[in-house]
């Protein structure tokens, strides 16, 4: 019994690292630009396909293709900020919500059209390997993904707290107008926030590729988790999102273990709705403008 629970917790924790990369991106964009990016999951999907094509065409290991997927998605983020999101800043909820929502629909369905709904997998030498510690089983691919996800999250935290640009981003997220008065260029800060957030999503995609199939709808799974984690961890808070993501991973995994294989999502949604029901003042407070 203890071992079953420990195994479920480990499984949850490992996948929670990936959720963390996605939700940190969502929370970063929300914190700085005040936009909820409904398309974040689709960028994970793009990251996965980049790694998939690099692996099948050039034999590049999916983990190494981080060095391609992250810069590519950083650039995509800057472009999206410049040509799309910048145009709806300061407008009401409708354009802000439905712009990224439309973007998500567009990318998802373009992927369906161009790449078909087939599942694509990459098999690496470590895909089937695992560490055995006592009776516990730790897949190598998931372990690498988890460690790198934590390293990237840590790097982001250091970036936000030690560099001028990072401090400017935190300042802009605390109070955009005052930050602007202090000489911070919001366009630049917003572009970097989008770029970094999308690069994290791309990293999540590359890290997933050795043990998770790529398909056009794959992002939906992760973006839902990310929304829950972002709410649980209070909006705009990077550490909060990280901790909440790990907890979400564990909750999902325990749900699968004890309620049934198809109940992972239901546990997640119920968590979301309970959070919303129990902590409305904190949340609603955060969302008042």
């Amino acid at each position, binding site marked *: 019994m203890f071992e079953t629970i420990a195994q479920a917790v480990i499984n949850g924790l490992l996948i929670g690292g990936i959720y963390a990369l996605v939700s940190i991106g969502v929370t970063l964009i929300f914190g700085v630009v005040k936009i909820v990016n409904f398309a974040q999951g689709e960028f994970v999907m793009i990251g996965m396909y980049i790694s998939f094509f690099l692996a099948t065409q050039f034999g590049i290991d999916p983990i190494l293709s981080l060095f391609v997927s992250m810069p590519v998605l950083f650039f995509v983020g800057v472009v999206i900020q410049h040509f799309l999101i910048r145009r709806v800043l300061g407008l009401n909820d409708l354009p802000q919500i*439905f712009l990224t929502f439309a973007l998500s629909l567009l990318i998802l369905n373009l992927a369906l059209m161009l790449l078909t709904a087939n599942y694509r997998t990459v098999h690496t030498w470590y895909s089937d390997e695992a560490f055995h510690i006592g009776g516990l089983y730790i897949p190598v691919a998931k372990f690498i993904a988890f460690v790198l996800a934590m390293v990237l999250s840590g790097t982001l935290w250091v970036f936000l707290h030690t560099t001028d640009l990072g401090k400017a981003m935190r300042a802009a997220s605390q109070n955009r107008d005052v930050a602007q008065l202090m000489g911070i260029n919001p366009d630049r800060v917003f572009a970097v926030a989008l770029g970094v957030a999308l690069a994290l999503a791309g990293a999540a995609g590359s890290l997933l590729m050795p043990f998770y199939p790529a398909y056009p709808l794959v992002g939906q799974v992760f973006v839902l988790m990310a*929304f829950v984690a972002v709410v649980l961890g209070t909006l705009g808070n990077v550490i909060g999102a990280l901790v909440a993501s790990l907890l979400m991973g564990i909750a999902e995994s325990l749900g699968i273990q004890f309620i049934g294989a198809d109940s992972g999502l239901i546990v997640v949604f119920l968590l979301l709705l309970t959070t919303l029901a129990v902590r409305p003042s904190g949340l609603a407070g955060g969302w*008042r403008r």
Partner: protein
Amino acid sequence: MPRLHGWGWLVLGGVTVVMLILPYLVKSSFAVDIFIRVLLFSFIGTAWNLLGGYAKQLSLGHAAFFGLGAYTSTLLQIDFGISPWIGMVAGGLVAMLASLPIGWLCFRLRGPYFTIATIATAQVLMLIFLKFRDFAWGAEGTTIPNLGHAPLMMQFETKIPYYYIVLGLLCVALMITAGIERSRLGYYLVAIGEDEDAAEAIGVDVPRIKRNIYMVSSFLTALAGTFYTQYIYFIDPQTAFNFNVSIEAALVSIVGGIGTLWGPVIGTVLLETTSALLQSWLGNSIGGVQLTIYALILMAVILWRPTGIMGYLIEVYGRRLRSNPAEA
């Protein structure tokens, strides 16, 4: 919406006559099927528009009520032999009741978080219906027993009666909307949509108004669910609680003109015509084409015409009035 004058009534009368004889003008059942889809989504969009358009509560969870309506009438029909005509109203009432706890939960939130919470409620309902197989057939769903020509059980041998049913539903929804638009409630809704805090400050009972309009909106959406199930003779959680229903309800309203009487209808005509044309050009072979085009249209509207087609028409019409005062 300005009150109609001479020409307006003439156009409305003309459209009504055309709509009434339309299924007899075209002989192909493919075309009638498209008309039914257009009317159905105009109807769902109109129901969504009451909450999403006037009060600007941007729900992406209306599939919850669509599905509840569909399941209520189907369960009543198959388990108890009750006619879907009664089941339709029962489904509406179930959806209305369900909107109370859902609204209680979601209306605590604003902006994007309201939207996310509504998505979650619809998904939870779908997962519940997927999971409890003894209660409602689980993931396999069920077919509606075909009784041939049975008007009392909402079953017909041709598509034409379905056309008139959904046309009737749309007319009812439009009349309700027109009524609300001119009532005190309509002004409250617009006030909430403009600025919730300001509305509250001047004495609008915001929670009560939101709750009431959510009940009306979910009741109407549930009727569409029953109708659709009877029309396709099949129900399963994936079709009944399909996220695309939630998306399209919002999409047609936004493209046509959010918070306007005719917006959802105009939006649906544009989107469904585009999708029908695409299908006849490309066939059904390539997945994702329709939603790709919808997404592009939605983005274009958001970036260039946030008030939708109706907003644009009102702008042009208004300008003409100003430049030519004699006509006004």
